[in-house]
């Protein structure tokens, strides 16, 4: 039961980690673009 529970619940954890990585990169790029006075995209 524990193994099955971990198997189901590990994916939302990985998803949350990816969301954090992408968000941090986005914020850093937005700040860098603002500092340089350029458009983000």
């Amino acid at each position, binding site marked *: 039961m524990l193994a099955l*529970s971990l*198997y189901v619940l590990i994916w939302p954890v*990985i998803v949350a980690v990816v969301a954090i990585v992408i968000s941090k990169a986005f914020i850093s790029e937005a700040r860098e673009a603002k500092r340089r006075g350029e458009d983000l995209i």
Partner: protein
Amino acid sequence: MNPEAVGFSALTIVLLLVLFYGGTFFVSTRIGKKNENADGYMTAGNKIGFGISAASMTATWIWASSMYASASSGYTYGISGPIHYGLWGALMILFIYPFGKRIRKVAPKAHTLAEVMYVRHGRSSQLMLAGSNVVGSVISLMSNFIAGGVLISMLSPFNFIQGVFAVAGGVLLYTLWSGFRASVLTDFMQVIAMLGAVAIIVPFIFFAAGFPAAFETGAANLTAQQSNFFSSEAFLNQGAPYIAAVLAYAIGNQTIAQRLFAVREDLIKPTFITATIGYGAMVIGVGMLGVLALYLGFTPTGGDLNNIIPEMAASYLPGILLALFFIMIIGALSSTADSDLSALSSIMMADIYGQNIAGKKKANPKTMLLVGRLTMVAATALAVALASMQMNILDLLVFVGALWGALVFPVLASFYWKKVTNKAFTVSVIAALAVFIPVRFDLIPMTGITAVLIELLAILGIGIVLGLMAFGFFGLRPAMVIGIGASVVAAPFCFGFLRDYTTLSASLVAYSVSTIICYLMSFRSTQNFDFAVIAERAGDFDTGEQPVAAVPAGSRNSTRTAQERE
């Protein structure tokens, strides 16, 4: 309308749609330019950072159907089902990145793969690839509109057609003016909403539905195969056909190529790896809802497996999380739909108008932008019309997928091998399709010598698929060892066996026939193509210079192709 299916009032659903599409439209206006650049409209200047490009790649690859299909796979094949859907789909992104690095090196400023094929080979190769991209994107667009219409009709008093119009209008609203730039920026918001929703909704349903205790009480609902993580049934019916499609979908899908040309060149690897993990975890995570439904003995309405996710959500989520779920699905289908619109507009701008009608030197950037925007409007109208007919999407996708499978070797070889000719490209793709169609649609009896020959081609196809995957990462020699080794190892198991799996066999045959013919027609060729020509001729259209005035008909300008120069 089924009254029991109503989850939201009309006012609530309108507010949610206004919130979602209004928000994305507002964001897109922040990057709007009065004088939009035609190249920016297609690839955003080829220098997007890691955060936006990883978000965009993930969002684009996740569409509503991928979530529904992953849950269906979990419900049908048990605990390994979502892995056999999501893992291979994720690997499509991973396995294309080494090729992506080569493609960007050869064509750093291109907009579409077909545009590169025009320079590399000529018009027939270009239009073959562009045509398959257009058909694939229109089908994808239609599929996402259908998913939106179904979801809105299921969770609100509105009907299917009203739902389709709401989604189509919303996506067109924020994509039309800024094109690809709007698509990738809004992808970031959409993917964060989607990922956040999955991180909350899946654990919530897990505990609300009585798990982990339900793993014991519901174990009897699973067959031996469904309980087995190493289920051969799941692998052969779900996983194996997907492995065969890994390279095909990544090569044939202009939405992926467009992001490949847009991301900063040194960020291709981290972008593709992050998107692989993000896509895989999200789709497998949502697919687990199908596994939970199986344990619960849950029966979707009308036996339609596409109802599993919405009905599980409606059964176990409180109002606020059901709204989050609604945004998640709308975000998934909108992010893919806006990418399809951008892909279609780029193909019409670069491949049809830029290369074939005006010619690269004479292409007017303002006309290009008009072509791109009109394409978006026309594609939306066409997809809405097709969506209202509720055509069989699966059959269409299978056909396009096979077309892409037939294109994989000729396209990839064209980026590495100087000898590949336009004739070899064109003939090999047509021949592969000519063999694929009767196999896939059971038009020839799979018995006797015919079955043996098809199985032989399919076994060679296994080696070619694995060899190509290995080639991207390790180079030619290891790829040859892996490819030949895979065919030799597979042969004893596949003769007399693959004939019963025509979907898989047909896909593999498309690979092998196109590879064999392309190789045989090219290896004695005297062509010695200079790859530097591609960077020179597949570049920016909108350089700020005035387009060249009228050129006498029939004159050869610098847009002439490799084939024309032969």
